[in-house]
């Protein structure tokens, strides 16, 4: 079938502002949208700029705004977003992150927020030999948030961030939750200065947009709410994971 890719273009070296450009391509309904973009890049316009790598939804490179919603181009089939001949598919960069060129955005700040939550284990105990033990129940408690691929879709979709606030955002909190709820970790105290700050967990207003768009199906809003609760519990009793 034929579809029209209506792509938002911006070249910092020549353009003063972004504009849309249409590319008509012949595709299979089961093709990935990334395949269609690669066709444009390799056959129609080599200067079309976007990131990609794994092509099956695991590396987080190609999150973009497709028909108004954040999605991974490689995890979106043409038939998911176009149902008839000559359908127009609108493709824009992620929102709320600065655009570098075409569909490429600047992740610098996004990764800064990731780093400040101290996304690494503060071991509860030192093991000399072998492994920490962890029950199935304990392991299950943080399973969902381990799936995050740092694609920034949630960041782009978050209404609070779109207002231009300094909220650290859903992805950073998901990464913090990955440790806060790990029975082997005791780092909540060390993360409090960021999580319990004005731009930490508290600006979240439960719009649920992050959960809606997350390509990994993570219950992002729930993770944020559980983290808020854990912070309160910790401040009352000084305990984490008990």
């Amino acid at each position, binding site marked *: 079938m034929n579809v029209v890719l209506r792509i938002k273009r911006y070249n910092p070296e020549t353009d003063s502002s972004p504009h849309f450009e249409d590319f008509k391509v012949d595709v299979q309904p089961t093709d990935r949208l990334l395949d269609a973009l690669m066709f444009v890049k390799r056959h129609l316009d080599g*200067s079309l700029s976007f990131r990609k790598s*794994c092509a099956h*939804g*695991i590396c987080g*490179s190609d999150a973009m705004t497709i028909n108004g919603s954040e999605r991974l181009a490689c995890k979106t089939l043409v038939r998911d977003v176009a149902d008839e001949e000559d359908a127009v598919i609108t493709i824009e960069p992620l929102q709320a992150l600065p655009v570098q060129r075409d569909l490429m955005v600047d992740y610098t700040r996004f990764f800064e927020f990731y780093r400040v939550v101290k996304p*690494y284990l503060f071991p509860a105990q030192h093991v000399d030999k072998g*492994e920490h033990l962890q029950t*199935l129940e304990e392991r299950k408690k943080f*399973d969902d948030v*381990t799936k995050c691929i740092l694609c920034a879709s949630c960041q782009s979709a978050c209404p609070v961030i779109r207002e231009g606030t300094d909220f650290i955002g859903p992805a950073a909190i998901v990464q913090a939750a990955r440790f806060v709820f790990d029975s082997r970790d005791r780092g909540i105290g060390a993360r409090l200065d960021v999580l319990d700050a004005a731009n930490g967990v508290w600006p979240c207003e439960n719009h649920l947009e992050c959960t809606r768009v997350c390509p990994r199906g993570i219950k992002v809003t729930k993770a944020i709410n559980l983290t808020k609760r854990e912070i309160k519990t910790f401040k009352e009793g000084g305990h984490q994971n008990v």
Partner: protein
Amino acid sequence: MSKTQTHEFDAVIVGAGGAGLYAALEASSIPGNRTAVLSKLLPIRSHTGTAQGGIGAALGNVEEDNPEWHAFDTVKGGDYLVDQQAARILADDAVQAVYDLENRGLPFNRTLDGRIDQRRFGGHTRNFGEAPVKRACYAADRTGHMILQTLYQQCIKNEVAFFDEFHIVDVLIEGHRCAGVVALELATGALHVFHTKAVMIATGGFGRMYRTTSNAYANTGDGPAVLARRGVPLEDMEFFQFHPTGIRGMGILITEAVRGEGGILRNREGERFMERYAPTMLDLAPRDMIARAMMTEINTGHGILGDPSQDDYLHLDATALGADVLAKKLPDIREFCQTYLGLDPADKPIPVQPTAHYAMGGIPTDLDGRVTADGEAGVYEGLYAAGECACVSVHGANRLGTNSLVDLIVYGRRAGRHMAEFVRQADLPTLPGDAATHAEMIVKRSDKKPQPGQAAKIRTSMRDIMMDSVGVYRSGAGLSKAVEQFKALRAEAQDVGVGDTNQAYNTDLLEFLESQNLLDLALVTAASAAHREESRGAHSREDFPERLDERFLCHTLVTVEDGSIRFATKPVDTSIWKPKPRAY
């Protein structure tokens, strides 16, 4: 072109996958060492993150196991082309490597008593081949994702200096001393010279040579190709693994763990055909054997379509696992099937075909990750390699599943350690006056006026030829023809320009560089395969169906100079187990 900047470091690691990051952790744990990691992708996008099934280590958490069995399986799986002391180190150190990852936070799946859970994988056996053993430690079917995340987290903790989206174009080598690398910065298009005492190459695989592959777009073999251009030999390039179960047409990987958990391969008659090819290990025989069995089934009309002239396929039947096991142990696999095939593997079989997956060959190294030259020349001083781009060799002619992740950790660490020690006592070598010249020339080649579609045509031809003539089955005639075709394509590629003439974020230029690297590696792969007139592991010659130890129990070293290809050999270490015929 913007002005070239020069940076000075003690050590530079190129690549931020499992191998590069582990080396960075080692290097950064020595105070005073200035280490930089360069990566063409944001580190967290590296291909290690896609590894699914597991990392092998004889922990014995679920059933009796020991590292000696693991080492033996590795050697036999590699059809005796494995260097045996290297395999011993791999298997012995794997145990502590997995504990280290766990201690640093990796969320492995757990057993009922809270230990790291383990499952079966192809070619891993109890007691030297008696029966399958549960050796693969795993975090659902995103083991690689968790390894990459854990290592990146630890690097952040250690404040490792990253240069993200820096793409190396050249490695500076004078005589046998490495003095640094030259990289292109994506954001600006500027070249940067990194002047350093030591360099480690950890750029991963190059499955993108093939039409159907499990590999990411980024897997273009830049490290080996850049070194080959500098006269460094490459080892055992003829051995490229086809994984039996890629999603039909797309090549997306369906992990062997599906079979480890009980999945079965079936032909159009519904027969479990592996009973005829590998009566003991069945669907858990090594990958080379299964891929060949599948091609034989397809070529004899037992594919699902029953028509070898079409792009035929087989079924991977995971219905017996049930929705619960799939959800707990293979959730991503289930999701891939739902997303890309519109089916649930709990109800329906998965259509699969062999997919180009893993490079056994690569940059030759010694046990400390030092890059070795051919013949008597010894090692390159200050040049290291680790991970999929390197060849220690622990995978020989065919890698066992779960052994790549072990390789990254065990040899990434050994190389990182050795390099950290080396830079403590070494002096900074002199930087050649024309450090950036060679790189400038390479980048400048792209200035030609592009012919529309020409680059795409060359790339498509390369991938088709690799698939058809340098795939699961090969023949002398097909390989010789492929070599000639690649020479012609390389000549043609000299005239391909780059459409995008901007400086900032020029991904078109990167694709140009990557394509040239792939073409170079396609040429040496085909040439090495033509040179080896025997069948061993993943290299299967129709005209030479037997393994010929008298002539070919040796590693191939290949060098390309001014378009002519030179071969040398390197002995295989068989000091522990005598080579035997391989049966499963």
